[in-house]
């Protein structure tokens, strides 16, 4: 297989391959934009994941709120945000989770002008 997707260290580049891999997970996360689904999810997270046919890896990433893992296995970050919203977690909190930094350190880095690379 040829993939043209640029490999950039430390960066997820969401492409058709990621989309294929994360299909069930993304469908489940996308469903959380609807209030009635958010209720159903919160009532029984595991059963809700099963309805959407998540495999074990996807399901445990969701149940354990392994944010980094979700994005590594094909979840679109824009869908992950919908799950974080249910938990009332901010984008900065997610930034910390993705980078292994504390919320405070991550926020401080942004206020100091952002993180620099390359």
């Amino acid at each position, binding site marked *: 297989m040829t993939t043209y997707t640029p490999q*950039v260290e430390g960066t997820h580049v969401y492409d058709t391959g990621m989309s294929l891999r994360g299909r069930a997970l993304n469908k489940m996360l996308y469903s959380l*934009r609807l*209030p009635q689904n958010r209720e159903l999810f919160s009532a029984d997270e595991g059963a809700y994941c099963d309805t959407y046919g998540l495999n074990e890896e996807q399901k445990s990433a969701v149940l354990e709120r392994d944010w980094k893992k979700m994005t590594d296995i094909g979840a679109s970050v824009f869908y992950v945000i919908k799950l974080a919203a249910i938990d009332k977690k901010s*984008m900065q909190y997610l*930034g910390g989770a*993705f980078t292994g930094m504390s919320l405070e350190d*991550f926020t401080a880095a*942004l206020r100091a002008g952002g993180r620099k690379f*390359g």
Partner: protein
Amino acid sequence: MAEIIWGLATSHVPSIGAAMDGRLNEDELWKPLFDGYAPAREWMAERTPDVAIVVYNDHANALGLEMIPTFSIGTAANYPIVDEGFGPRKVPNVVGAPDLSEHLLVNLVDEGFDMTVLQELEVDHGLTVPLSVYCPEPGDAWPCTVVPILVNVLQYPQPTARRCLQLGEALGRAIRSFPKDIKVAVFGTGGMSHQLSGERAGLINEEFDRNFLEKIETDPQSLAEISRADYIKKAGSEGIEMIMWLVMRGALGSDIHRIHETYHVPASNTAAAMALFATPSSEGSNPHE
């Protein structure tokens, strides 16, 4: 015939919308950004368009990942505000301009742009935050109708920066050939540098942003030559959004000048900017309405 009276480039970060909705204008974090908007808002308020063409991307809110159009255009009469996961943003619904949409659609398809037609569309922060940057207090209704033009920036391969500039050039021709005397503003939205996930999350590249901010006026061709991979490498996986500014830029034509700009870090996890451009038709438009 229709005229393009100005072009606005602006970030569309959701937290800017939240800060405006929460009236945080004086909050120390947001004050510099909102102070930066003030002179541009004053200038625009004296030159009110009939229609805003808003070039933006949906953030997996209204459109699923099952079907991803490279370029799409709304042709609806109304665009409700989407629930992004915490209830719809409390701003007026967006009223469409189906006649202008149809005109743009046919002309763009005739020029070989393979548009997707959205007869129904709920709009997310990508469209509503720029409207608020223009008009912070809309009351019950936005002061203009809207034609949404959407660009895929979420899934590789995004359109090339060059293709975005070309779409803008064709869009400009299509607008100017609309046979009604209406005033049109074009919004290019998104950016600046940011990356939401991965170990590089929190990336800001002010040098790249500053160059982009300058060249969007003076040398858009140089920005059109930057590859997708380089946008992602240098501006972050979500910073590639700024290719949407090139659509606006292409529509404005060659004879423009900058009215105002502002650059601010951070807005949420993003570098945010705004740049406002006048066209030869700017001064003809109701300066003292």
